[in-house]
């Protein structure tokens, strides 16, 4: 019953080699990821920042070179940039506001058991699985009076004089992509918040109800404080993500009509893709990055206070 085991005391494998092995092992596992990320993301990031100080346009191949802050001066004077900035604000705020509150409502509904909950959950989360380009096309079609019902409904309830495409109306066109974005984004918030809700211990609610708390008090005194850290971090990440999310706008309006719906990220894409002006695209991107970083700092500061409060 004895087992012959290889108990040779580290023959051939010396101590130094083994120590080295312990040290190197994690880097071996990490190296493919690091190399890939460095080459495809970090190097281009640095290169991209340098573009903002050069003149690089594939349409004017002879006018290349360092230009200092000329691109930023151009940015300051660019009316379209300011328009896109305003739009970015409304686009992000509008999308986020409705995504969040409708998502929270959905999460609260789904947090209580009812007959058919599993099926309902699967159905309401479905938009999340629809690729963004398809959501964009789909909603563009729904807003089209030729094949879509929405303009006819709006006309029927008196919001519009006659069925017309809001995407063709510079004053309202931004609402098209926002609605699509809300549709697309509710499930994300609902999923995150539902997971957070389900991690709140049941006994807390039971203790609160024994202590005499009403439903509303339970919500404000237990649910909200518990969700607050999740909410802060989710809202922050989501804001950044939405501000960067150009697909819906590019697909639904292409920034039009008359450049009225560009947000900064869609403006970056059009500048790089249509005009092939890489330098100016990078300048726009840096402006967006700075704004988002400032925003993230702000939220993280706020979150610190929130977490302390619990």
């Amino acid at each position: 019953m004895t087992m012959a085991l290889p108990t040779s005391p580290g023959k051939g494998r010396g101590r130094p080699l083994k120590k080295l092995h312990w040290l190197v092992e994690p880097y071996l596992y990490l190296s493919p990821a690091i190399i890939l990320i460095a080459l495809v993301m970090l190097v281009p990031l640095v290169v991209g920042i340098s573009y903002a100080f050069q003149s690089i346009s594939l349409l004017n191949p002879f006018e290349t070179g360092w230009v200092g802050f000329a691109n930023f001066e151009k940015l300051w004077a660019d009316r379209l940039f300011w328009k896109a900035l305003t739009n970015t604000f409304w686009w992000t705020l509008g999308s986020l506001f409705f995504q969040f509150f409708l998502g929270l409502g959905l999460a609260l509904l789904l947090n209580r058991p009812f007959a058919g909950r599993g099926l309902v959950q699967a159905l309401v989360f479905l938009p999340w699985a629809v690729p963004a380009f398809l959501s964009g096309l789909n909603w563009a079609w729904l807003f089209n009076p030729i094949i879509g019902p929405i303009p006819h409904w709006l006309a029927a309830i008196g919001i519009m004089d006659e069925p017309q495409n809001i995407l063709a109306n510079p004053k309202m066109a931004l609402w098209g992509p926002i609605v699509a974005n809300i549709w697309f984004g509710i499930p994300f918030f609902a999923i995150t918040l539902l997971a957070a809700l389900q991690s709140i211990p049941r006994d807390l609610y039971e203790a609160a109800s024994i202590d005499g708390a009403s439903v509303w008090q339970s919500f404000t005194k237990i649910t909200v404080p518990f969700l607050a850290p999740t909410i802060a971090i989710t809202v922050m990440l989501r804001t950044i993500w939405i501000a960067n999310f150009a697909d819906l706008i590019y697909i639904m309006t292409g920034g039009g009509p008359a450049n009225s719906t560009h947000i900064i990220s869609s403006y970056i894409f059009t500048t790089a893709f249509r005009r092939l002006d890489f330098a100016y695209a990078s300048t726009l991107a840096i402006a967006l990055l700075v704004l988002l970083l400032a925003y993230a700092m702000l939220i993280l500061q706020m979150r610190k206070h929130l977490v302390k409060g619990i």
Partner: protein
Amino acid sequence: MTAITLNSINKSFGPVHVLKDISLEFNKGEFVVLVGPSGCGKSTLLRMIAGLEPVSSGDLIFGETRVNDLEPRERDIAMVFQSYALYPHMNVERNLGFSLELRKRDAAEKQKRTSHAAGILGLDKLLDRFPKALSGGQRQRVAMGRAIVRDPQIFLFDEPLSNLDAALRIEMRIEIAKLHQRLGTTMVYVTHDQVEAMTLADRIVVMNAGNVEQVGTPLDLYSNPANLFVAGFLGSPKMNFVSHDDPALSLPKALTHPKAKTYGIRPEHIQVTAPDDNAHLIGTIDVVERLGSDTIFYINHGAKQPFVVRVPGIDRTALGEKIGCIFQPNDLHRFNADGQSISEK
């Protein structure tokens, strides 16, 4: 013959020095229990013996072989984890036989040894089950069975019973004791439960804050604790400590010692008498616990900690009564200013 020799073993996690110059020898076939409060380094020591933590400095020797640089799999050990660490995707039979599978043993031998181990632990009917379909006690048995199948040089146990309820814990404790008698393998067992330590061990190593406080047989540690820590750690209820200048204390000259700063007496080594001049300590009864077999008095004698007395049988002395205590002279412990036991009487 020594099975394991620890020679000035140190362990640091970054700047934190968790084990300080540990030197110990465990004999072949011995059941050694490492015991101490949580964070004392006992589990780290066990994991170093297993090869799961590198040794920072010192020599770890199995028999004649220095094993510091051997992988766990090369050390011929088996270990039972606190969490049991059963492979959730394998049934009981494969869990038991996994080590043999890794060593490419043939099916017949695997079958023989698995069923042998299953027989010892009464697992024969559970071989097809998966871990999640087992109760806590059954999981515990499988974890032990996995070690038995190995037939290793050394068995290691890392708090194996702490996830079980009280009744099962006693049952499994007896099972482990029987297993040791049957196999006669060297076993090293980590626990924070002093009852497990007292009942299972051939020798106990009491650890505290990265140091070995005392090594000895259970009764040796019980009767002759080397210092305040060991005296207070082993035994239940705990030993009473009374300061030498406590006004409630009046020891006859013969029992005192000039260097003694603290006197220790176990609750079971005290007789209850009238609160007169013969009493060594006088106080009032604050709380009484009547267990039937014993009666435990918590006596208020003016100090922060109550003075605990255990008398056999049912004692009807009532709450709030003033009583006196007489210490059995041979069981009185004296500790000097450093907390070390003063050995001469």
